[in-house]
C-alpha cells in the first residue's frame, strides 16, 4: 500500500457519492416552470465547520478576524465574507459554510482558537444542502414548516433551525426569488427530497380557486 498522498486524496474524492446523488434525476424532472415555478437541486459537498466559543472572549475576536466577518450574535442572523458564511446556531455555537476546503478552514480557525476553551470541528458530512427556488418555493415550504416565512418576517440573509415536514433542517433564505437552502442531516436528506418533490408536484397544474 502506498502512503496516502495528496494525489491519493484527490483520487478518493472522485469516489465520493453525495447523499442525494440517486435522486438527482428525480429532482430535475420535478422542476416546474412558469409563474408558479419551483426547482429543487442538491449542492453536494459544501464545507461545513461547527464553531463553539464564548462570544465575549478574545478567541471569538480572533476567529472573527480569521473569517473576515463578525460571528452573528442573534437568532436568525448570518454574516458573509469572502467564501465563508457564518450561521447562528445558539448563543455560543455557529456553523460556518465555506467554499474553501474544509481541512484548511478547520486548521485556520483552530489556530485562531488556540488553547482557549471552545471547539472547531469539520462537520461537512453531517448535512447536505438542498436548494429550493422559484416563485412557488415559499408555498412549498409552508406546507410543512411552522415558521412564518412571509417577507415581513423572513428574508434574504436569514437562517434558522426549524423543521420541514418531520425533518429538522437549517433553513436559509438566499434571495428574493425566493431561493431557500435547506440543510438536513445526510441520513434524512432522502426523505426530505422526496417530501419536497411531492409537495412541488401540485404547481404543475393550474391554480385552483
Amino acid at each position: 500500500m502506498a502512503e496516502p498522498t495528496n494525489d491519493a486524496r484527490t483520487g478518493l474524492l472522485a469516489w465520493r457519492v453525495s447523499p442525494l446523488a440517486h435522486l438527482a434525476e428525480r429532482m430535475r424532472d420535478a422542476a416546474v416552470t412558469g409563474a408558479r415555478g419551483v426547482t429543487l437541486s442538491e449542492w453536494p459537498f459544501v464545507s461545513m465547520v461547527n464553531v463553539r466559543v464564548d462570544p465575549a472572549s478574545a478567541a471569538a475576536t480572533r476567529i472573527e478576524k480569521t473569517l473576515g466577518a463578525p460571528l452573528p450574535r442573534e437568532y436568525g442572523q448570518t454574516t458573509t465574507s469572502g467564501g465563508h458564511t457564518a450561521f447562528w446556531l445558539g448563543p455560543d455555537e455557529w456553523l460556518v459554510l465555506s467554499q474553501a476546503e474544509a481541512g484548511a478552514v478547520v486548521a485556520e480557525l483552530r489556530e485562531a482558537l488556540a488553547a482557549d476553551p471552545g471547539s472547531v470541528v469539520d462537520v461537512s458530512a453531517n448535512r447536505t444542502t438542498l436548494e429550493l427556488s422559484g416563485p412557488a418555493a415559499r408555498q412549498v415550504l409552508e406546507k410543512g414548516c411552522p415558521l412564518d416565512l412571509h417577507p415581513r418576517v423572513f428574508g434574504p440573509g436569514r437562517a434558522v433551525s426549524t423543521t420541514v415536514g418531520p425533518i429538522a433542517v437549517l433553513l436559509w433564505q438566499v434571495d428574493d426569488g425566493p431561493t431557500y437552502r435547506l440543510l438536513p442531516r445526510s441520513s434524512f436528506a432522502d426523505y426530505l427530497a422526496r417530501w419536497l418533490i411531492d409537495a412541488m408536484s401540485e404547481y404543475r397544474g393550474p391554480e385552483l380557486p
Partner: protein
Amino acid sequence: MLLINCPWCGPHNESEYHYGGQAHVPYPENPAGLDDRQWAEYVFYRDNPKGPFAERWMHSHGCRRWFNALRDTVSYEVLATYRLDEPRPEPRVTDPAGEQR
C-alpha cells in the same frame, strides 16, 4: 399547540421543543448519605400542582438549549420563560374567578 418563547430564539411552536420535567430539583448535597426512600423521592417524586408549575424545556429543533418555563397546568398558558441562570419569576396571574393562586 403551545407557543413557547425560547429565551434565545423567541416564540416557536411547541413541536420544536422537548419537555424535561419539573425544574429546580436540586441534586442531593450528600448523595452517599441518602437511603433508598430518599433516593426514590429525589429521582421519581415530582410535584403535581394545580396552577403555575416550573418545568424544564429544550428547544431541540432550534438552538438546542435548555431553559425553564412557568406553565399554568390548568389553562396550559406559558406564563414566563427564563434562562437556567435566572431565578424563578413570580406568577403574575389570577384565574378567571379572581382567586390568587
